[in-house]
């Protein structure tokens, strides 16, 4: 199964890639900004996208909205990973069509468990 992670922070990309490292089950694809995330999602059609909110070019909310609005990618599950904590940020995540919302800092093992739950339903 393919999982796409988009985050402009190199350390977070390394952390999530290390957390999900399981070559027999997952192929983890990495994007550094919103544009790259959309382009890779369109090309690779992953089962799950993990999206940071604050990214250059297009933010995570925008990427999520575009993925959910396109019939070719609307079925892809999306988890938002964000350091933002205001109520309106949670509302924005829900309104953009995200399936789950994880607040940074998060437990990598809790994230792995959530990813496994979501992918079990795909």
């Amino acid at each position, binding site marked *: 199964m393919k999982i796409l992670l988009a985050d402009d922070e190199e*350390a*977070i990309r390394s952390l999530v890639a*290390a*957390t999900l490292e399981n070559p027999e089950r997952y192929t983890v694809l990495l994007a550094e900004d919103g544009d790259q995330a959309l382009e890779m999602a369109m090309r690779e059609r992953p089962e799950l996208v993990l999206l940071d909110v604050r990214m250059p070019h297009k933010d995570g909310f925008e990427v999520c909205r575009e993925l959910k609005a396109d019939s070719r990618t609307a079925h892809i599950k999306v988890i938002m990973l964000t*350091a933002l904590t*205001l109520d309106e940020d949670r509302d924005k995540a829900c309104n953009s069509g995200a399936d789950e919302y994880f*607040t*940074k*800092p*998060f437990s990598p093992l809790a994230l792995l468990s959530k990813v496994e739950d979501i992918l079990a339903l795909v």
Partner: protein
Amino acid sequence: MVGFLFRDITDERALEERRNEFVSTASHELRTPMTSIIGFAELLLERETTEATRRNWLQTIHRESQRLSDIVEDMLDVALIQTGKLRIQREPVALEQTLRLVLDSLNSGLEAGRVVRKIDENLPPVDADRDKVAQILVNLISNGLKYSPATEPVTVDAAYDSERDQVVVTVADQGVGITLEDQERLFTTFHHLRHPNMAGVRGTGLGLYIVKNFVDTLGGEIWVQSEPEVGSTFFFTLPVHRSAKEVGA
């Protein structure tokens, strides 16, 4: 009356927006390194892995801890500034010597090697706080290095301005430059430059706010001249130390 009320509401909204922006940015700046520190520590505790990977994760924890510490230091400086509790210890400060110490403290020798020093050893000492002057130089030089290609130098120059009896220091880079729109907000809190090539450049967005307040408190001025895609030159002034002025008179 209606106009008055309208202005009040608009001001309140603007203030509320700035508060929200502050909370969002502070939250992002603090939580991002915390995520790496907590996350890699958890993986180290829970996962069997190779020695090379362990070392790599520990290096990331160390680097991100340093980053978090820098952010906290900057936030404490901002708190001191905004509560009027910033203290300075005035003394004669030799700029050439301070710059040498600053370059020694830069993390990478490679980066320090990109800095061209043009400060005259015979320049009169300034009336300032040595640590604050060092922090001003570190911030301006680090920005110059971050926002310009790795092959381009950052030049630090200083000259005595006899007309106003002050020293003018310049820090010049040949980097991405700053748009007029960005220049207007450059010395405010949590302002980051928007440039597509600089998307991965990190910073708290507090450095220039702190620098401006340090320069103001020391009795100087700071300004910038910049052209997008050509480069930026930051200027700041500091008064000459009194006894040095008397000797020079």
